[in-house]
């Protein structure tokens, strides 16, 4: 899977919680742009885990500020698994 496909899938998961209608790109940030609260982030992490059949440890989250960084992390975890 290319990172573009990963990015697109993650954007699909974010769209329903994108209450402010912010354009979703690799550089969009979760805190400043999307203004997601911790509860919503938790739900999103679970959705990403189930979509890609991976585990996304919450101790990685502080380093993942943008959608692109999450997509990279997902690709890395998927690659490690295979």
């Amino acid at each position, binding site marked *: 899977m290319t990172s573009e496909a990963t990015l697109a899938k993650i954007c699909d998961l974010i769209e329903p919680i994108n209450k402010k209608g912010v354009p979703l790109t690799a550089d969009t940030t979760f805190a400043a742009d999307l203004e997601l609260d911790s*509860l919503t982030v938790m739900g999103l992490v679970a959705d990403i885990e189930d979509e890609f059949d991976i585990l996304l*440890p919450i*101790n990685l989250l502080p380093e993942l500020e943008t959608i692109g960084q999450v997509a990279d992390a997902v690709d890395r975890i998927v690659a490690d698994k295979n």
Partner: protein
Amino acid sequence: MDLLDKFDYILESRESMPFQKADPLTVVMDEVLSETEAVIQGRRTILAGTNNYMGLTFNGEAIDAAKKALDDFGTGTTGSRVLNGTYGSHKALEAEIARFYGTEHCMVFSTGYQANLGLISTLCAKDDYLIIDADSHASIYDGSSMGNANVIRFKHNDVDNLERRLKRIPEGAGKLVVIEGIYSMLGDQAPIKEMLEVCKQYGAMTLVDEAHSMGFCGEKGRGVAEMFGVEHLCDFIVGTFSKSVGTVGGFAVSNHPKFETLRIACRPYMFTASLPPSVVASALVNIQTIARSGNRAQHLWENSRRLHAGLKDAGFTMATDTAESPIIAVLLPDLEAATRFWETLFLNGVYVNLSAPPATPAGYFLMRTSLSAQHSTAQIDQIIDAFVKTASDIGLSLTP
């Protein structure tokens, strides 16, 4: 850059709360009249939010034992359990708790918070997997961030969600699943049998926190794991002295043959002073009291069912369908209603906990009551009446 500026948002959110005559964060108990009553702001107030489940804070035998320990051993140990802070009474208390739980080992910590912090952060190291319920208590989250393990969250009390995550963990990795017998905010029980069975199916070790269930769940009062006959599936059980036991401190019990190693590996156990002898003495007596307190536990359950039914019949929105614990929580629509309800109920003579996000799950605003075995039936009815009067005072519509 002022380091304290980062907390301005907390201050702002506090100042936005419309409290006028009382504020839950500044409540001072001027006089404590009994396990269930105090004088606050000059008012006699029923305490319905103090986690004093078994009502043992004024147990005469425990007070006498604590006084004797003060006379015999002084006010404090001034040292860690691994230096000069282990007295004969600390060992006797550990033996008593191990006997109570029927386990080989017990470690006593200086608080329940430290018991979770210590066990969780020490058991799970780099490359291990720590799997926790999304609604876990702060002590479990803090233990998670103190260690270096991969921390995975599953949806609250959701066995399938837990299983999907257990399935994805690499084979051979160390795994610890942490659950609570009763969750402190909504007072709901874990589906503990199903959860522990799935953990064992995937070879995970298990830690069950019985802080809010010890004393009155299970025939012997050991907690929810005993109540559902699944203690054999618990590798570690953690508990506290600050609720049913009526003092302060925490403990962990286990049958693991290497459990005692934790005494020289667990930093929150080693790098703090041990409990004062008076606290140890009262904890020991109160645990012995719990062991023969079937009737007391029975009355607590009756109180819980009576309050739940009374509030539900009055038309309040309950956090759980039935009374699953002595924690009975009422849901309120928003922060405005919650703050006004809390303040008015307080002025009407009943103290409960106002719980709001982020301490609560799903963004709930709660009036959280926790009952005591020492509450009389008449007091339970007074609490119900005060809730109904408060709803009317603030114009909260009820749907009986």
